[in-house]
Each structure stands twice: as structure tokens, then as C-alpha cells.
């Protein structure tokens, strides 16, 4: 008599690990984050080394502008995440609109930052004023360029979705998740700049 083999073994389903978006985009994101880690660390070092100079510099920034920009980028990230959720449901039109909304949040960020820079320059502050202003202008402008690139990526992907240029679910997923990951990276970096420049006195 042979032992009875179970016909069906039920095991808990564990999702297979899956990278959101393209592998190349993730290497690009990690390279960008390495540069930003260096800048954020240097800024913290300057703040720790010359606390009076840094605090005096922070006091000249517009705290409400920093707050509104943070809320704007968080909202943009939320809209882009909604776009990715729409892509998973197969609703291409919604992807287009959520990604455009994400890019619009970036535009609002650019307008606020430009006004802030203009006020700073009018008050006579430049990269040469002292080490605080060098780091402030250099790091925030470097971040701003990433916001612009993020907007371009979102708009290009939204346009390709609108024109139906992604012809398979896999390519749609790859494109939407890659664009969204880059945009969230830009948001993540700003969340680390925010306490150094606009929260800690």
C-alpha cells in the first residue's frame, strides 16, 4: 500500500519582487541620489560648523514659500501615483491627465522658486555673499533643474500615452513607473532639503 500523495498543496502567495520601472532609470536615480547625498551632507556640515551664519541665512529665506513648495511637490507626487494606479487599471486617458497634473505642480514649484530667487537677488544676496548662500543657491538650483527634467519626462510619457504609442501592457507599465519613480525621487530630495532650509531655525 502506497502513501496517498496530496493532490493540492496550498501555500501562502508571496508576490515576486518587482522593480517599479526600468532598471536603467533606477541606476540613473541612484546616481542622482548619490550626488544629492553629498550636497545635503555638505550643507549639514556647513550648518554644524558655522551655525550662526547658517541661521542668519535661513532667517532671510521666505518660510511660507518653502512650505508651499513642499506641499506642492507632495501633491504632485500623489497625482503621479494616481496616474500609475490608473495605468494598472488600464485607463490610459487618466494617466495622461494625472501626469499632466504632476507636471503642473512642478510648474507651480518653478514659479514660487523663481519669485524667491528674484527677491533674494533684489535684496543683494548672491552665490558670493557667504558659504550659506553658495550652498542655498547651488543646491536648490541643482534640484530645480531636476524638477524641470521630471516635468519633461512626465509630459513626454503623457503625450506618448495620449497618442497610443505604447503598444503592450508591459511597455505601458515600464514607461509610467519609470517616469513616476524619477518624479518621486525629486520629491524625496526636496523633503530632505526642507528641514535644513525652512524648518530648523
Amino acid at each position: 500500500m502506497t502513501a496517498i500523495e496530496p493532490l493540492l498543496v496550498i501555500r501562502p502567495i508571496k508576490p515576486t519582487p518587482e522593480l517599479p520601472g526600468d532598471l536603467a532609470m533606477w541606476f540613473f536615480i541612484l546616481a542622482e541620489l548619490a550626488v544629492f547625498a553629498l550636497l545635503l551632507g555638505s550643507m549639514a556640515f556647513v550648518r554644524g560648523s558655522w551655525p550662526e551664519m547658517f541661521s542668519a541665512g535661513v532667517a532671510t529665506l521666505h518660510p511660507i514659500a518653502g512650505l508651499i513648495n513642499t506641499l506642492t511637490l507632495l501633491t504632485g507626487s500623489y497625482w503621479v501615483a494616481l496616474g500609475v494606479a490608473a495605468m494598472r487599471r488600464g485607463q490610459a486617458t487618466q494617466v495622461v491627465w494625472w501626469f499632466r497634473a504632476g507636471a503642473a505642480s512642478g510648474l507651480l514649484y518653478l514659479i514660487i522658486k523663481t519669485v524667491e530667487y528674484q527677491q533674494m537677488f533684489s535684496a543683494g544676496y548672491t552665490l558670493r555673499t557667504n558659504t550659506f548662500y553658495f550652498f542655498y543657491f547651488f543646491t536648490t538650483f541643482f534640484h530645480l533643474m531636476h524638477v524641470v527634467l521630471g516635468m519633461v519626462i512626465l509630459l513626454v510619457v503623457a503625450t506618448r500615452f495620449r497618442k497610443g504609442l505604447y503598444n503592450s501592457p508591459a511597455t505601458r507599465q515600464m514607461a509610467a513607473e519609470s517616469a513616476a519613480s524619477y518624479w518621486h525621487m525629486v520629491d524625496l530630495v526636496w523633503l530632505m532639503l526642507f528641514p535644513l532650509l525652512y524648518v530648523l531655525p
Partner: protein
Amino acid sequence: MTHKLTLSWLCLLALTLLGWWLGHQPFYPLFPQQWLLWAVLLLSAVKGQWIINLFMGMKNAPMGFRLAMSGWLLIVLAAMALFLSLPLR
């Protein structure tokens, strides 16, 4: 999923407002300023990991990439904590 994203977004906004409010209170003669630093960095850590896990969708990503992202967050915040709390001069 949409409800989860909306709830997370509202929590992230609330944590941002809380951090900003804490940094703009005039009560630091009453409390050590070091407490503010730790509170603000803790809020930044929670917000950063939240973005990584939910918005970026790294919760289901391969372990190496998850470690890279969370490790980046940890290194940046640790550098801030170290440089802002040690007397460097």
C-alpha cells in the same frame, strides 16, 4: 489603492505642516533645541520612507534596491543628525 494613496498624501501633508509649525515656535528657551532637531529629522524619516514604500512602490521591489533607497535616507539623515548635534568648532 486610490484610497490608500489619498490617505497617505493627507498624512504626508499633515506631517509637513507639523514639522514646519514645530520649527517656527518661540518656545525653545523652555525646551532644548536638540529636541526640535530630533523631532524634525524623525518626521523627515517617516515621510521619506513613506514616499519610498508607497509612492515609489518599493515595498515589492528586490531587496537590494529597497536597501539602497532606505540606506540613502538613513545616511542623509544620520549625516544631518551628526553634523547638527556635534560641536564642530
